[in-house]
């Protein structure tokens, strides 16, 4: 028996009101895959990512994490809802997310932000978690900022803390939702280089991004979403040098 995919999404649909944003997207990430998800704004790429950890509830479709399906049911209004919220919470802890707006907890120091998940969700002993948090902050180059509050850091530093916070959970899969889009151009590099290191370590990552160079150089597979559907996908070398669809060609020429 082969090992199940780290993450599998089957035929995901999501509508807001009458507007269908995701029109049946399927995707599979094996352990160590780095999947870059590209698309124009409004293509549904962020919504897709947020459906995976149920920040948005998909209307239909299944999400499997290492073969375990997130169980959904219909409520009395016919809407899709989680069958067992405890299971969803357990799954979310294995699916760390890095947000466009960092979303660090502003009343906590950098160290407290990184400790929160391991200590209060995974119940790791504090001393052990603290030691690991130090190592992670060191890895993202912020060991000297452990006692700072997020508001006292630059955007790039905040995003690196957010990455350390995500790593602290030892996630099976990391979801990045446009991690560099809110950063000043000169701060993008420091965040991308941390993400490159993670890819090199063999982390499984889904990265919604506008950074073409990251998709081209780092991803093992690039997926182009257009109007809620996968329009084109494949290894980045092939995709970027030889785009097959008119939509992806137009998208690439707009980005360059």
């Amino acid at each position, binding site marked *: 028996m082969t090992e199940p995919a780290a993450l599998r999404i089957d035929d995901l649909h999501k509508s807001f009101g009458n507007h269908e944003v995701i029109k049946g997207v399927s995707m599979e990430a094996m352990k160590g895959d780095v999947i870059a998800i590209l698309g124009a704004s409004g293509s549904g790429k962020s919504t897709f990512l947020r459906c995976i*950890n149920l*920040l948005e509830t998909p209307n239909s479709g299944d999400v499997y994490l290492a073969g375990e399906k997130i169980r959904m049911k219909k409520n009395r209004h016919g809407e899709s809802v989680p069958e067992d*919220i*405890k299971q969803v*919470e*357990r*799954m*979310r*802890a294995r*699916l*760390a*997310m890095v*947000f466009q*707006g*960092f*979303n*660090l*907890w*502003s*009343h*906590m120091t950098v160290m407290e932000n990184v400790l*929160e*998940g391991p200590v*209060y*969700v995974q119940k790791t002993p504090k001393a052990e978690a603290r030691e690991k948090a130090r190592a992670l902050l060191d890895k993202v180059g912020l060991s000297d900022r452990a006692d700072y*509050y*997020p*508001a*006292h*850091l630059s955007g790039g530093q905040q995003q690196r803390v*957010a990455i350390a*916070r995500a790593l602290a*959970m030892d996630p099976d899969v990391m979801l990045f939702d446009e991690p560099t889009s809110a950063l000043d151009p000169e701060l993008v590099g420091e965040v991308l280089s941390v993400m490159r290191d993670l890819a090199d370590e063999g982390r499984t990552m889904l990265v919604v991004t506008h950074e073409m160079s990251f998709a081209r150089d780092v991803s093992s597979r690039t997926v182009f979403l257009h109007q809620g559907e996968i329009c084109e996908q494949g290894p980045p070398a092939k995709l970027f040098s030889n785009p097959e669809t008119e939509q992806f060609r137009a998208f690439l020429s707009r980005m360059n």
Partner: protein
Amino acid sequence: METVLSYIPLDIGLIAQNFDRFLYGVWITLNLTVLSLIIGGMMAVPLAVARAARHPVFNPLVWTYTYVFRGTPLLVQTYLIYYGLGQFDLVRESWLWDPILSSAWWCALIAFTLNTAAYTTELLCGAIVDTPKGEVEAAIATGHSYRARMRRIILPSAFRRAIPAYSNEVIFMLHGSVVASTITLQDILGVGRWLNGRYYLAYEGFITAALLYFLIVFTITRVFRWIERRYLRHLTGRESADVAEMTPEPVR
């Protein structure tokens, strides 16, 4: 010293003579204010959480309660409890009557507590609702349950952001506590009124009362500045290391 005092058109001797009464007045004022703030504050937390969650049953109930208590004067609320309830035989004959509802102190405490709980509920509810959406999402994405989110992220953040507004509520409650003097209690103002009634010297009693209230408010604002400096550091920008003084000067 003697000569300086003789220029002040106040009977300092009389104030000094009755100063122990004033000190006892300070004690009554403070114990009513502090107790009602503590009990009212503890009531406000679950009420605010229920209201912020838009709970289908509790939210309208809590809304009605806060609307009524914030929409009527504290004096009227106190009269209704102290004079109003005694009108009913049922109340007078119940076990609540003898130790509690027949006592002015208890009635004042109940009225003040219900009043401050209503204000604090709304204040806290506002702070809970204003919690940055992204921070709540980050907690959800980390795997926090609703309870853990509330306890670890939303409430600690909301409490801190509510501090400046709450300091105003504390001062308001202290000032509001003068209502106690109208139902026979010898709080600070009560002693001032007693002095006026007994010696026909309005200034002596009321100036002393005003000074004592002022001193207490001064202490409260100092304490809140210290609390803000300690707990609101995270809200200040990178450039300003010092906390801007957020406690408003008392206005009411």
